[in-house]
């Protein structure tokens, strides 16, 4: 099910691992290595923006590319692990 207004679940946070020089998502007893795109998407998941808002911001950043499906797919993947939730309930 697609997210309406995604946000990181409680206790989940973005972190820059300065030793390995990579971005990670930290959560209870785990870490997920993120690529640049994932970081950009997750930084916009503030529980206020809708999926369309997020896709629009990124589309603009990448010269009008349609990234909505990619964003939805990425969030579904992370959402399956309970790391992203819907602020819209």
């Amino acid at each position, binding site marked *: 099910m697609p997210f309406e207004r995604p946000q990181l*679940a*409680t*206790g*989940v*946070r973005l*972190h820059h*691992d300065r*030793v*390995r020089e990579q971005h*990670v998502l*930290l*959560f*209870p*007893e*785990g*870490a997920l290595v993120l690529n640049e795109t994932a970081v950009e998407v997750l930084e916009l998941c503030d529980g206020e923006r809708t999926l369309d808002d997020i896709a629009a911001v990124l589309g603009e950043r990448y010269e009008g590319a349609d990234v909505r499906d990619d964003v939805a797919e990425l969030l579904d993947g992370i*959402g*399956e*692990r*309970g790391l992203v939730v819907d602020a819209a309930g």
Partner: protein
Amino acid sequence: MPPVDVPVGNPLLLIAELTYRCPLHCPYCSNPTDIGAERYRDELPGEDWQRVFREAADLGVLQLALTGGEPMARKEIVELARAATAAGLYSTLVTSAMPFPRRRVEALHAAGLDHVQISFQHSDPVAADEIGGTIAFERKVKAAALARELDFPLTVNCVLHRRNIDEVESIIRMAERLGARRLELANTQYHGWALLNRDALMPTRAQLEHGEEVVRRERERLGPKLEILWVLPDYYEEVPKPCMGGWAADAILVQPNGDVLPCQAAASIPGLTPENVRERPLREIWFESELFNAFRGTAWMQEPCLSCPLGRRHEDFGGCRCQALALTGDAAATDPVCKFSPHHGVITAARREEPAPAPAPAGAEAVAAAPPFVYRDLIRS
């Protein structure tokens, strides 16, 4: 000592055993059986712990477990949580919730503590207190509610064994009611206190199969709402577990006195003296100490690991070194859980193959048939 034949990476996890004091007496405690010994009484001061956290973060550690014993028994726990936050570590309080006073827990929240894990011994209050050896259940329930009220993500941990595994479904429902995000169903690993109590704790294969079936069903029902972890009961396996993801591969453990180990049980290995954070930086201990390099890679292995017919050398790393030592007398032997180990018989002999008690009066028969517990205790240890 053979040369290390793998590139040594950086650790991800620091297990900080802040003290061995604990109000509970769980008979499967992962602490050493000599917790009352003189050498553990000189607890590392708070400022040393704070330095260790900074050294760990510089070494690449991302996750910190504040544990023990009972970490809340340390009066500097709030300052320690603050130091962990300042170092950029994701911190987990691994607690019995004895004690769990509101003002301190609020202070921990303000200090940036990320996650709370509370141990439960059973879903039934009487049985739970009997296993933990003290009156604790109702206070744990209140503590879980407080953790949720403060919006901590909550993990419930329950060690499984003969006396509670039949109630896995009710334990899962309890975790759900408590608002836990994660539930660790940790089948007992037989080290330290648990090895002493092995006969009293060992479930039957039928009990385990029933537990696994319930977990499968409940995972499907709950989805990501409650993540259920099932720690494998290795005595009923035919190949060993990749203990700690390989010796000194990901985790670094500091004991209450500052001794540094690759895992909870590694202090038992003879001839390998742990180094101490009071004397040497964590980075040097991680990369250079004899204890940490002793079983890295595969060059130290013996037969049958060396020519593993399943090609699992790099998958299970020969299993658990501490289990090999405890059950064969040689820390470099193949973990006897492996069916190719010449000592595999000690594992099969410890299994309880008789049918599980009838499901109706759950546990009653099993309790009667099992020997009494040797409770974890600082004095008797």
